[in-house]
């Protein structure tokens, strides 16, 4: 049983006022791959390092299974970590690097060699066992770092942006390999990245952090469809969701000449609290170019082959707003064209506090 739980875990670095991680409460299930994602300075790496034992918890506690590891040394936590720089020992061969944790555990030489060969077989490193790290490519180094982690059979894997030093193509391939390996080994894994695509494609669940605060933790699809606040809405999804200041009228969202019907529960909340400072969140595929809605000028056209994204500038409620609209690849439009932006839906509404207004179904949950 290797469930991991952060309980009010807090870390403030000396010389700073704001905590890097603030009262984090998060449980990672046994065998789960949880991705911690957020922008720079969000506290995701700090949270991982707290679990590793490389940073002390100022308050709160961390449990692995039933064991309180808050004050345990890194070597006593039974966790293995893959670092962003791989942190391979440059003076050791691949075999020595992979076998190093076993040597520390005083595993007999023959048994160590057998386990190193086994890890090398899984990671396709058998031909490189006698090489030094500097003689390897980036992808091979990454695999050695993975080998050093798996050879220990730890309770928890920690991965700190392990793919960020690889080129784009290799990253996609290695991402799939790591996810596959994790699924085969079934070891609880905490994976840190700033790349939301990596987070969405790899994580069984994704936890989003910002300024040390946990914003939302959910399955990738759930995050995409039901972001809890403006930060998550803007962070998850590629390209990002359009966030446009908006107004309502008689239970409808007003967008130029368009009127979009609101969920009854959302409409009730709006009428109770007033319609001040609402923000409409809508994904690029929820907008289209046409004759209704709000007049807009095309400023950038990004043709991706399978689809096209059109950046438009429009005036709405007295503000100049930039938006992104997805159109079919065949759609012809150029920079400088004038057109109208229409709403197809679905539309999310966020209140003045940044939180998404819940629909009737969600309120019923």
């Amino acid at each position: 049983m290797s469930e991991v739980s952060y309980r009010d875990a807090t870390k403030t670095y000396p010389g700073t006022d704001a905590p890097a991680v603030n009262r984090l409460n998060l449980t990672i299930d046994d065998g789960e791959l949880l991705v911690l994602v957020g922008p720079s300075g969000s506290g995701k790496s700090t949270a991982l390092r707290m679990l590793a034992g490389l940073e002390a918890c100022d308050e709160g506690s961390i449990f692995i299974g039933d064991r309180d590891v808050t004050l345990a040394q890194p070597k006593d936590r039974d966790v293995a970590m893959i670092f962003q720089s791989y942190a391979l020992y440059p003076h050791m061969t691949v075999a020595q690097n992979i076998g190093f944790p076993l040597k520390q555990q005083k595993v007999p030489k023959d048994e160590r060699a057998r386990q190193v060969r086994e890890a090398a077989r899984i990671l396709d490193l058998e031909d490189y066992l006698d090489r030094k790290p500097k003689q390897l490519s980036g992808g091979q180094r990454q695999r050695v770092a993975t080998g050093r982690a798996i050879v220990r059979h730890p309770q928890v894997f920690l991965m700190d942006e392990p793919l960020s030093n690889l080129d784009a193509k290799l990253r996609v391939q290695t991402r799939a390999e790591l996810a596959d390996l994790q699924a085969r080994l079934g070891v609880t894994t905490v994976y840190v990245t700033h790349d939301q695509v990596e987070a969405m494609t790899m994580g069984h669940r994704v936890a989003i952090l910002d300024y040390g605060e946990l914003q939302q933790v959910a399955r990738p699809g759930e995050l995409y469809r039901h972001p809890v606040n403006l930060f998550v809405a803007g962070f998850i999804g590629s390209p990002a969701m359009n966030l446009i200041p908006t107004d309502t009228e008689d239970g409808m969202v007003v967008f130029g000449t368009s009127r979009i019907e609101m969920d009854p529960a959302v409409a009730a909340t709006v009428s109770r609290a007033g319609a001040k400072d609402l923000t409409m969140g809508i994904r690029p595929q929820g907008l289209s170019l046409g004759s209704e809605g709000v007049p807009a000028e095309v400023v950038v056209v990004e043709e991706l082959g399978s689809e096209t994204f059109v950046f438009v500038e429009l005036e709405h409620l007295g503000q100049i707003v930039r938006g992104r609209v997805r159109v079919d690849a065949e759609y012809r439009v150029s920079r400088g064209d004038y057109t109208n932006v229409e709403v197809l839906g679905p539309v999310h509404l966020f209140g003045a506090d940044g939180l998404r207004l819940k629909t009737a179904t969600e309120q019923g949950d």
Partner: protein
Amino acid sequence: MTLTARDKQLRGQSRWGTAALGLVTWLVAALFFFPVFWMVLNSFKTELVANTKPVLLFEPTLDRWEAAIDSIPGLLSFSEAFFNSFLIVIVSTVLVLVLAIPAAYALSIYPIKAWRDALFFFISTKFLPIVAAILPLWIMAKELGLLNTHLVLIILYTAMNLPLAVWMLRSFFGEVPRELIEAAQMDGTGLYGQIKDVMLPIVAPGVAATALLCFIFAWNEFFLAVQLNPVEGSTVPVWVSTNVTTRGNFMAKLSAASTLAVLPVVIAGWIAQKKMIRGLSMGAVK
């Protein structure tokens, strides 16, 4: 690729610049090397030739080397001095490393709040001219019964080189990526293992360079040796000085003795040359 006239002009300028710089470097090197060359040359002359007009061509002889090595009863002999020097220098250098490696590791990896003050304190001990401290040192050595012993020089040479070694090693340790230490911690090593298995193999050139400098400084030290241990138990620099006599200038013999005195340092430097240059330039280029 075809070169434009401008490219050629630029390359020409840099070629002449490099050549001029090379020439200046050789001249400066020759200037520094000349006294050493003259010393070695003199050691193969007879006293008569060495003390008359300087000449480059002469009949070489090992006579003065033999004279330098010959021991005179009651005086510090060549073999004693070399044995003493090796013993004192090697023991003090080992002690310096044993003390400086953990200190430098702590200062670079787990720095205390006032680590800058600690480092400054170390180096500030070198600010005082040694002559200002010699009287208290002499009195202390006398009280402790350490005058004319190997131990007094071992202690003083260790103290003398420790600040330098801590400074050098700290900067070498600082070059090792922090993540390697963290990886070693995660892999289950304790403090000793982190230093022995991870840090030291990586900074070995730096440790070699530090050890060599400590060796050289201790080997060449004269003032403390002549004040605190001037008789039988003394070191090579003191032995060289015994070749200066009041009965006239024995330039050739003195040159032979001096050449013998510098040989171990030159040989050690030659062997460690590659490592030392790598060590001293560690951190110069990231």
